[in-house]
């Protein structure tokens, strides 16, 4: 129960801050490339530093951070199914997010601002989630059995 309440409160806080700051993690990648404008990229750096410091500090304080940092335990690159999914999924998510004009976090924020384009995007996003859960996940499971 506490995790549901915690995510609701955290969501409220980051939704509010996201609306005020207009932080977007896809624009952090595309804007430096298109406009040579690096201010959205500070979001990428801040997120990484915040998470790294958080996991380190909370781990030291006895929090639940099993296997952190993972890179020390799995330092090799193998052509396994999760790696193939990461490549295909990452490329597609980046490509179509740029076409849409923002990351899923930014679109949730824009939908909260009442923008109809973002609400329509989220409708497609949620239908896509259900389609994935019903259909695509079975295809990926079959591929995982083949690739290992």
């Amino acid at each position, binding site marked *: 129960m506490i*995790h549901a309440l915690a*995510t*609701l409160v955290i*969501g*409220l806080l*980051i*939704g*509010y*801050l*996201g*609306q005020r700051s207009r932080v977007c*993690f896809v624009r952090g990648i*595309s804007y430096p*490339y298109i406009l040579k404008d690096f*201010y959205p990229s500070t979001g990428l750096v*801040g*997120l*990484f530093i*915040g*998470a790294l*410091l*958080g996991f380190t500090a*909370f781990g030291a304080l006895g929090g*639940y*951070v*099993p*296997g952190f940092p*993972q890179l020390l335990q799995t*330092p090799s690159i193998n052509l396994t199914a999760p790696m193939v999914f*990461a490549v*295909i*999924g990452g*490329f*597609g998510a*980046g*490509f*179509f*997010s*740029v*076409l*849409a004009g923002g990351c*899923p976090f930014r*679109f949730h924020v824009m939908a909260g601002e*009442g923008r*109809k*384009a973002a609400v*329509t*995007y*989220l*409708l*497609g*996003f*949620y*239908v*896509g*989630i*259900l389609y*994935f*859960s019903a259909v*695509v996940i079975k295809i990926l499971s079959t591929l995982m059995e083949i690739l290992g």
Partner: protein
Amino acid sequence: MNRKFFVFTTALLIGTLSALAQAFLGVAPPVAYGICLVGHPRDLLVRITNLILGTTFQTQPVSANIPVLTAIGVLTGSAIGALQHKEFRPSRLRNPALMFILGFLVANFALTLGACILRTIVFIAYGNLHATIGFLCVVAGAIAGVEYLRRTGATQR
């Protein structure tokens, strides 16, 4: 406040809250799942769908009993911010079918990756190799998207 600094501090706080949610607030397993704007909505939607339609779609273990509510929080928090600062302005919708399809595609590719872009970066901070490869491919995809927009003469919405 300086805009660049505000974006940085907001993202810094999001990263720290993501770690806090996992470390002390029980938003795990899986790890680095404190905030995810594709995984958390998936858990919520799947739980609702399972409840209404009797399906047996899978959620992450953390949402096995009660789903995470991040998406509802973000939508509400953003609406509060917009209303408070008189920025709640429903804009004109130009191409609904395209936006719907783009949302559909982003959800499917992000779930194939296993995370939204926000969680991918948090996962990199956790030291995950697949997330690092995935993020490099997100960057490649984003650059390909920019080049596609340039060549077709389209503008970002």
